[in-house]
């Protein structure tokens, strides 16, 4: 028996919980927090033992990686949280095939730093390098190339999942394929990822060619995306959510492409890690303190001005302004200013990402931004991306678009914002849209059921087989699926 677990008889749920340390954990947005009973398994065997013990004792378990989900997806007020941070070994890395096998708690930062000097880069990365592979798999994260490379799961070769009974199950496209397509994107509700084999992609240079294109409206955004999609490796747009009238949706598109060795005279050197580090100072300030400077402008007038200034500077640089940027600098924009979320103050921020199919997004997104402006709750940061369908059961993506929006909670603690976002959510659902669980803290049971429909029946039918006692639960799952979890626990 391991040292972290009390020697209590099976079924002793009270002792199992109270032996765990009680930590105040939050979502990445900082606006949802919970005091959680937390254990840190130090090996896969220990993880399996903890899960089995909890399962026997009827204690719910939530898995947590780096806590980079914005809302309550890695929190649990009830039961236990198992923190995967100590399962952080890269078990193998083969530069000849580009396949890495790693434990679920390995942060993306460790993986790319290992692989890039050997000429490989993860095929899908989110806007920050700190999530763990397990977290990325659970949420089936996407990046600025989702329209081309799909979601994270499409590059997973296989994984080992610890089921609530403590068994280790391997799944791939050919072995336990149903589980493979459900656990990737399954929000941690089927078991705990133990090991993941990931296919990375070869790159010849450590840099990318990035082109900036200022655009004056949503119409222009869609036009440029349509025109450039086929030839771009990455395509993302920042949106000034304060712009109104005919300028609604104005912003700045970045089109990025990998460089062939022949296109970059410094291709080989640029693969070195020292070429990839983000700047330690920005505008002369140490970046660790930069969020303090952001704080005074994180209000409606300040952000209106900042967004305008950003748009004007993009416009000044002109259409087609092109430069070279390292992979890390282009991919991990969120890591430029460590602790940036602190600038939103003690209440934190709320991020909501709308997924709307093509072509409905072309009318829904402008309408959503106008509605948010009318309600007096404009987003401080908007990001537009293009998406394509993927084969996963609880996939958030389809042939369509997403608009990620950051909001301050406001003086009323978010009451007005939540009401406005409720209207936006209805618009999205009315257009056949979806939401992304890594960025959700607002949805209600009826809304998630409408968004995912019968796929949830299939998902929970599988959960009933693998996790009949509904051991795997998070605060998010209890918020979104109260009836389904109750039915499972009651054996209905």
């Amino acid at each position, binding site marked *: 028996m391991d040292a972290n677990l009390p020697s209590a008889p099976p079924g002793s749920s*009270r002792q199992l*919980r109270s032996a765990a340390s*009680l*930590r*105040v*954990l939050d979502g990445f947005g900082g606006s949802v*927090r919970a*005091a959680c009973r937390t254990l840190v398994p130090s090996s896969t065997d220990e993880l399996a033992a903890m899960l089995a013990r909890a399962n026997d004792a009827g204690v719910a378990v939530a898995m947590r990686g780096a806590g980079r989900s914005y809302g309550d997806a890695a929190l649990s007020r009830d039961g236990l949280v198992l923190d995967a941070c100590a399962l952080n070994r890269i078990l193998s890395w083969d530069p000849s095939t580009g396949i890495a096998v790693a434990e679920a708690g390995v942060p993306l930062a460790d993986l790319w730093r290992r692989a890039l000097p050997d000429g490989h880069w993860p095929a899908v990365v989110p806007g920050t390098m700190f999530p763990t592979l397990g977290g990325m798999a659970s949420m089936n994260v996407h990046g600025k190339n989702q329209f081309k490379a799909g979601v994270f799961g499409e590059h997973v070769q296989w994984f080992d999942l610890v089921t609530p009974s403590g068994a280790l199950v391997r799944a791939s496209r050919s072995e336990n394929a149903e589980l493979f397509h459900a656990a990737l994107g399954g929000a941690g509700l089927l078991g705990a990822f133990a090991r993941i084999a990931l296919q990375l992609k070869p790159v010849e240079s450590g840099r990318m060619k990035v082109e900036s294109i200022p655009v004056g409206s949503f119409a222009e955004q869609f036009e440029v995306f349509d025109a450039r999609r086929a030839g771009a490796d990455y395509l993302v747009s920042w949106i000034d959510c304060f712009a109104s009238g005919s300028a609604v949706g104005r912003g700045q598109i970045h089109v990025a492409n990998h460089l062939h060795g022949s296109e970059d005279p410094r291709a080989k050197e640029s693969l070195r890690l020292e070429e990839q580090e983000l700047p330690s100072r920005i505008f002369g300030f140490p970046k660790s303190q930069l969020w303090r400077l952001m704080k005074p402008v994180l209000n409606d007038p300040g952000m209106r001005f900042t967004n305008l200034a950003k748009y004007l500077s993009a416009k000044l640089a002109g259409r087609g302004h092109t430069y070279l940027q390292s992979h890390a600098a282009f991919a991990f924009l969120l890591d430029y200013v460590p602790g940036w979320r602190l600038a939103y103050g*003690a209440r934190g921020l709320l991020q909501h990402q709308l997924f709307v199919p093509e072509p409905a997004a072309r009318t829904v997104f402008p309408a959503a931004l106008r509605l948010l402006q009318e309600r007096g709750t404009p987003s401080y940061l908007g990001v537009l991306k293009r998406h394509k369908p993927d084969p996963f059961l609880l996939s958030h993506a389809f042939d369509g678009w997403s608009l990620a929006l950051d909001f301050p909670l406001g003086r009323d603690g978010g009451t007005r914002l939540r009401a406005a976002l409720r209207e936006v959510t209805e618009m999205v659902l009315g257009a056949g849209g979806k939401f992304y669980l890594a960025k959700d803290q607002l949805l209600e049971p009826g809304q998630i059921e409408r968004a995912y429909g019968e796929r949830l029946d299939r998902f929970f039918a599988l959960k009933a087989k693998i996790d009949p006692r509904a051991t795997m639960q998070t605060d998010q799952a209890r918020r979104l699926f109260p009836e389904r979890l109750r039915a499972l626990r009651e054996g209905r």
Partner: protein
Amino acid sequence: MAWSVKKAIVVGASSGIGEAMARRLAAQGAEVALVARRHDELERVAAAIRSTGGKAHVHVHDAAQSGEAAPLFDEIVARLGGLDCLVYAAGTMPELAEGEFDFAKDRAMIEVNLLGAIAWCGPAAQLFSAQRGGTLIGISSIAGERGRRGNPGYCTSKAAFTTWLESARNRAARDGVNVVTIKPGFVDTAMTRGKAGLFWLISADEAARLSLQIAAKGNSASGFVPARWALVGFVVRWIPSFLFRRMNF
């Protein structure tokens, strides 16, 4: 906005300051979970609260069994449907003869006055931090200000509890948690009854009233009850050691 409590736990609610705090919180409209060792006494307090239209639940628990605190805390919070105040008022001070050392007595004091306190106040402080609000009231004592010759175990337990509360305050205050240290002087309770040399004696109800007054400031105050003991505390702290060891205080 005025300080108000809707859901509270009072540990040590069967007598003394704890009972008085529970009654006063209930009278202010709070639903109160009464926690103590003696079931009959708890039922008496609960009945008194209910007779005046208040809401109270009874939970039998020996504060010396600190291992049972965390699960019971969770159970009570689930039953109340939340929590915004915890009062730890359980305390014990066995009689010591002049110059006596009795490990069993010292151990009982550490278990109830300190370990039980940490076991209850810890989860409450974390919960309040997570929800960014709540009041944690620890009934410590002026006895924790200095190591007096009369009762080393008691002074130690209270000094440690006072320090623990200060740490909890420094940890949780930035989350808007109100951590309140109450240092009563002599209060007329079962603990002090029959003891010699008491002065400025106040009733448990008066101590509870003053304690809640300090908590209601909402600014993580630490206060003597009644306030004039602050003067005693100040003097006692600054008496040089070579004089202090000659005193019978």
